[in-house]
């Protein structure tokens, strides 16, 4: 079986393993941007080209060659890339290779959002009011949008995963959205057709997993709640949903099955619905492939979806009946992305994973990833590092495990979104289930700023940093092998320190006995103890009797310590150093209003200005594409363009100077 890696950073390792278990020989195709883990897991690996996807994973010729070379009998397409490409399915059929997925006509019918909507309507599935056709020009888009009534959603006909998707509230945004969406659609899917539909404000995104065989049987495997999204891409998913009652669940499930049967669907598929606050649900689209978030369905139903897909492809009948499908416990999935959560809930970050340790030592935690320590996160692929799934008998248990798992997840070398994930899953609104697809912008209207510390948590954090600082200082005095004995042995178990945390300065007194530090800070007393292994990235501490997992991200000679515990950067100084430090001048940061720097690494797609042009505030200056997302960079004020330092097609790094304004 050939198993093309779905995404560089988040291939489904489990699927590969499974094929081993049912003694199917696995082969995987890889791009030159090596994906070591999969190569190790697979029995055989074939390189299909260089890192850019259109030369490798989207290069059908190369993949067909790989199939011939390995003599594979079947192909599991993973997700993304060619997984919903009917051309690919056709070519496989022509060579008598089994495509592990639905038949070509189902891919075609459901892959086209316009056609799928018509079919859904015919199958008596609730649909969203909208325009059932291809939109040709920006002006036509504006006209249609006006007919439907704002807000509207512009999206790629061939798309999925939020790519080529824009929400528009007025004519101007419609024009801009049309242009971006068609460009993104063209680069991501090679198909720039767009459609427009009514945008349902504040909805939940709930999807039904279906499984059908080639004998006309179809099941619904319950729902997945995927409402926590940023830029229309899912971040946290759970199964089941806190919002559905059994009646709605059954109604949605039955409609999903109706749709699957209407297109003679076989294999695993997902029917996505938008659900409004009155539990009205509307068909959104059907994904004719395995979803990224399928593990949570596997957790609560006990079914192995990839195994089922292989069975169905082989022509077997489904083993289960609808009444066999349970909801056992609760499962949560967090998508761990290599991105900076402090910039619009996540702008891609690249780099080398200098340290990487998954929390798989914890029970009921599953991590699907395709990377390991030393891997590069490149601009060529989706920035996903892994899917972190936790399971529990109850939602609370699954959430508690997720918190633990996130605290134990070691990622160094790239910026990642674990601080944001941790905030989401511990947020009272999330815990109570009061969520919608607007959760992030509603909860963090000014963007995610990191955890806001309560007084007791702040004390714990300050105390931990102080204890760590003293540990490193004491260790510096332990010099072995010296020929000399210090004249007066230094014995100190009482320190006065000052810790800077954000804008605040906190003085504290620390005493030590054995491994236990007692810290008096901000009118409270905190006891911190631990093993104090300074080489380990994980720092398991007992703070006031409670076990906490902290991580030391960095520490330097100047007392700067970055702890990941509710994610915070601190600086610990001795009382003297703190006092003297107050005399040190603030260095003036660079004036950024007249320069435009790339906010992330990527490729320059378009430069809209040239030297001498005058730009208005908010006017687009250039467009950067990174990890298949197009980002428009705009002027922060009206100014004349002084210099342009980039040109289309160029690769730029984070912080590179793009354009200077006067």
């Amino acid at each position, binding site marked *: 079986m050939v198993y093309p890696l779905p995404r560089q950073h988040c291939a489904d390792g489990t699927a590969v393993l499974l094929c081993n278990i049912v003694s199917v020989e696995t082969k995987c195709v890889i791009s030159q941007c090596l994906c070591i883990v999969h190569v190790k897991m697979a029995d055989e690996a074939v390189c299909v080209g260089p890192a850019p996807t259109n030369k490798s994973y989207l290069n059908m010729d190369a993949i067909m060659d790989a199939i011939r070379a390995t003599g594979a009998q079947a192909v599991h397409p993973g997700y993304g890339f060619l997984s919903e490409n009917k051309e690919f399915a056709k070519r496989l059929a022509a060579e008598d290779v089994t495509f592990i997925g639905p038949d070509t006509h189902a891919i075609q019918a459901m892959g086209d959002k316009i056609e799928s909507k018509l079919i859904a309507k015919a199958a008596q599935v609730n649909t969203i009011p909208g325009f059932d056709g291809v939109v040709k020009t920006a002006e036509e888009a504006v006209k249609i949008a006006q007919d439907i009534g704002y807000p509207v959603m512009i999206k790629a006909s061939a798309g999925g995963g939020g790519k080529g998707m824009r929400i528009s509230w007025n004519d101007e945004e419609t024009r801009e959205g049309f242009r971006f969406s068609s460009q993104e659609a063209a680069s991501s899917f090679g198909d720039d057709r767009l459609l427009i539909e009514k945008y349902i404000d504040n909805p939940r995104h709930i999807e039904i997993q279906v499984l059908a065989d080639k004998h006309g049987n179809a099941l619904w495997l319950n729902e997945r709640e995927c409402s926590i999204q940023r830029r229309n891409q899912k971040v946290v998913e759970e199964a089941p949903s806190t919002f559905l009652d059994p009646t709605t669940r059954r109604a949605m499930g039955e409609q999903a099955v109706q749709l699957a049967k209407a297109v003679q669907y076989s294999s695993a598929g997902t029917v996505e619905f938008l659900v409004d606050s009155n539990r009205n649900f509307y068909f959104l689209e059907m994904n004719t492939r395995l979803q990224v978030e399928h593990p949570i369905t596997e957790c609560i139903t006990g079914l192995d979806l990839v195994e089922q897909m292989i069975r169905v492809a082989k022509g077997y009948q489904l083993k289960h009946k609808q009444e066999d499908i349970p909801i056992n416990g609760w499962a949560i999935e967090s998508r761990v992305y290599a991105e900076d959560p402090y910039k619009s809930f996540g702008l891609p970050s690249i780099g080398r994973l200098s340290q990487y340790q998954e929390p798989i030592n914890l029970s009921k935690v599953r991590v699907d990833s395709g990377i*390991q320590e*030393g891997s590069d996160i490149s601009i060529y692929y989706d920035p996903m590092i892994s899917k972190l799934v936790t399971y529990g008998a109850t939602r609370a248990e699954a959430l508690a495990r997720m918190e633990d798992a996130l605290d134990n997840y070691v990622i160094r070398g790239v910026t990642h979104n674990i601080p944001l994930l941790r905030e989401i899953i511990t947020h009272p609104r999330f815990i109570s289930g009061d969520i919608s697809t607007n959760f992030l912008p509603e909860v963090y209207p000014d963007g995610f700023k990191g955890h806001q510390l309560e007084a007791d948590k702040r004390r714990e954090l300050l105390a931990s940093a102080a204890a760590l600082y003293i540990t490193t200082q004491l260790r*510096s005095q332990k*010099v072995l092998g010296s020929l000399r004995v*210090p004249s007066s042995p230094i014995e100190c178990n009482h320190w006065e320190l000052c810790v800077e945390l954000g804008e605040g300065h906190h003085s504290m007194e620390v005493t030590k006995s054995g491994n236990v530090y007692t810290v008096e800070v901000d009118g409270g007393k905190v006891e911190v103890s631990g093993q104090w292994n*300074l080489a380990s990235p994980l720092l398991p501490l007992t703070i006031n009797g409670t076990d906490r997992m902290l991580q030391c991200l960095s520490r330097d000679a100047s007392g700067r310590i970055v702890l990941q515990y509710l994610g915070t950067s601190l600086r610990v100084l001795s009382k003297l150093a703190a006092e*003297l430090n107050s005399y040190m001048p603030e260095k003036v940061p660079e004036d950024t209003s007249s320069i435009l720097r790339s906010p992330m690494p990527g490729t320059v797609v378009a430069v809209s200005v040239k030297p001498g042009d005058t730009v208005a505030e908010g006017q687009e200056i250039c467009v950067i594409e990174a990890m298949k997302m197009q980002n428009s960079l705009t002027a922060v004020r009206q100014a004349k363009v002084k210099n342009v330092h980039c040109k289309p097609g160029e690769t730029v790094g984070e912080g590179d100077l793009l354009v200077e304004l006067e």
Partner: protein
Amino acid sequence: IPVLTSFRSLAPVKHGAVAAAVPQTNLRRDCRWYSVSHLSVKERIDKKRTAALVGGGQKRIDAQHKRGKLTARERVELLLDPESFVESDMFVEHRCSDFGMEQDSNKFPGDSVVTGRGRINGRLVYVFSQVQLHNSMVSPDFTVFGGSLSGAHAQKICKIMDQAMTVGAPVIGLNDSGGARIQEGVESLAGYADIFLRNVLASGVVPQISLIMGPCAGGAVYSPALTDFTFMVKDTSYLFITGPDVVKSVTNEDVTQEELGGAKTHTTVSGVAHHAFENDVEALLNMREFFNFLPLSNQDPAPIRESHDPSDRLVPSLDTIVPFETTKAYDMLDIIQTIVDERDFFEIMPNYAKNIVVGFARMNGRTVGIVGNQPKVASGCLDINSSVKGARFVRFCDAFNIPIITFVDVPGFLPGTAQEYGGIIRHGAKLLYAFAEATVPKITVITRKAYGGAYDVMSSKHLRGDVNYAWPSAEVAVMGAKGAVQIIFRGKENQAEAEAEYVEKFANPFPAAVRGFVDDIIEPSTTRKKICRDLEVLASKKQVNPWKKHANIPL
């Protein structure tokens, strides 16, 4: 009152206590009372000590702080362990009798430098900290010699340097001086020379570190230049032979102090300074960290700090770090950081000649010097600047018993007229010389390319490398396949075929391994474990070069 200081080092006294004891309005009067004979000796001692400790008074201290700088005594206090400073020569005064300098009002206990010894993390160190006065803050009486180097000032520095050499302990100089004291004329020059001589005699005996924390101009720059490491503070320190005014009058160049001799210039362009820090506090705290790596003298072994990082830790990510394409770059710092203890690497000259990486780290707790070609910059080739940078570092390690670990990925020396005219032959020879003469434990890991003469230079087996490893990706050859084939098969057809043959034959570790030029071909993931074991064995290495008065390195 020339001593611009705070008064904190009066050990048992808490900050602020002395200030309260000496009303500020009486400061000048207090100072003039030194020679008033009706005071008892005890009282006179106390007066002088207080005068030395309070320095210029709160106004001057504030002025110094306003400039973003600490006073000489604050610097010493922050650098050393609490209450460990033992001051010497607090009562020294200048002896100049010209230009009215002999007046008591122009004499100050301590004479513009604080000297003594103390401890950093319990380990002995000698320190001097110069006192810079700013003209604007000094009354007319004192303008003339504020902070400048007098004979007495030099004598104080020489005294602690002599003591440091006698007992074997490093010297850290905190430089912030206005240059020679013009009133003293040749005596001041003699003072400089006395210091220079001691810098030279102490060189290779005890580590000498200069931290430039203010202007340092004219002859004064040669003392830091003679020491082992020169560190600077950004925005407040300058080093130059002549200032911008003289430059303008001689060469008609317009240049600012910062461009001419600021921290950025010296850490990126000239290579005079080894590192720059944001401000005084950061610089001093980093000095403490840096000091931890150094042995106290050439008679002491490299220090071993308690380590929490297992010596047998495997590093799987190294198995994939070297790209398949020989032309593709990777970051040598990634290799270094994953191999050393706790990813803790103190890089020396990180922004100068970046095609070679040098710095200190620990392996199983023991200080080691790391040298590595940096494929990310200019393919890691050797040029004039990188050769000199590497050579000086290697010689420091060798002088102070610090084992050297070399990571090799070098395509050769950089060709071109600029390099040849600049004397790459002479300068490249320095690195070769330094590796060859070094008798400390030398461990070499060839990660990829080791081509041509540069292979020989980079701590090869032939230069008495103790343990030389090759990774499977290593290619030890005279040159790359393409160039070699063009020479061997000049004008012949089938260049591609010949190239493939060459790659098969030479672009791998075997030609070197079969000759014993590398001791083993190792899995990259085991590199840390192997080096830690080797270092244990080599701890007792004894190797002596032939007797000589001194060697003659091609300068």
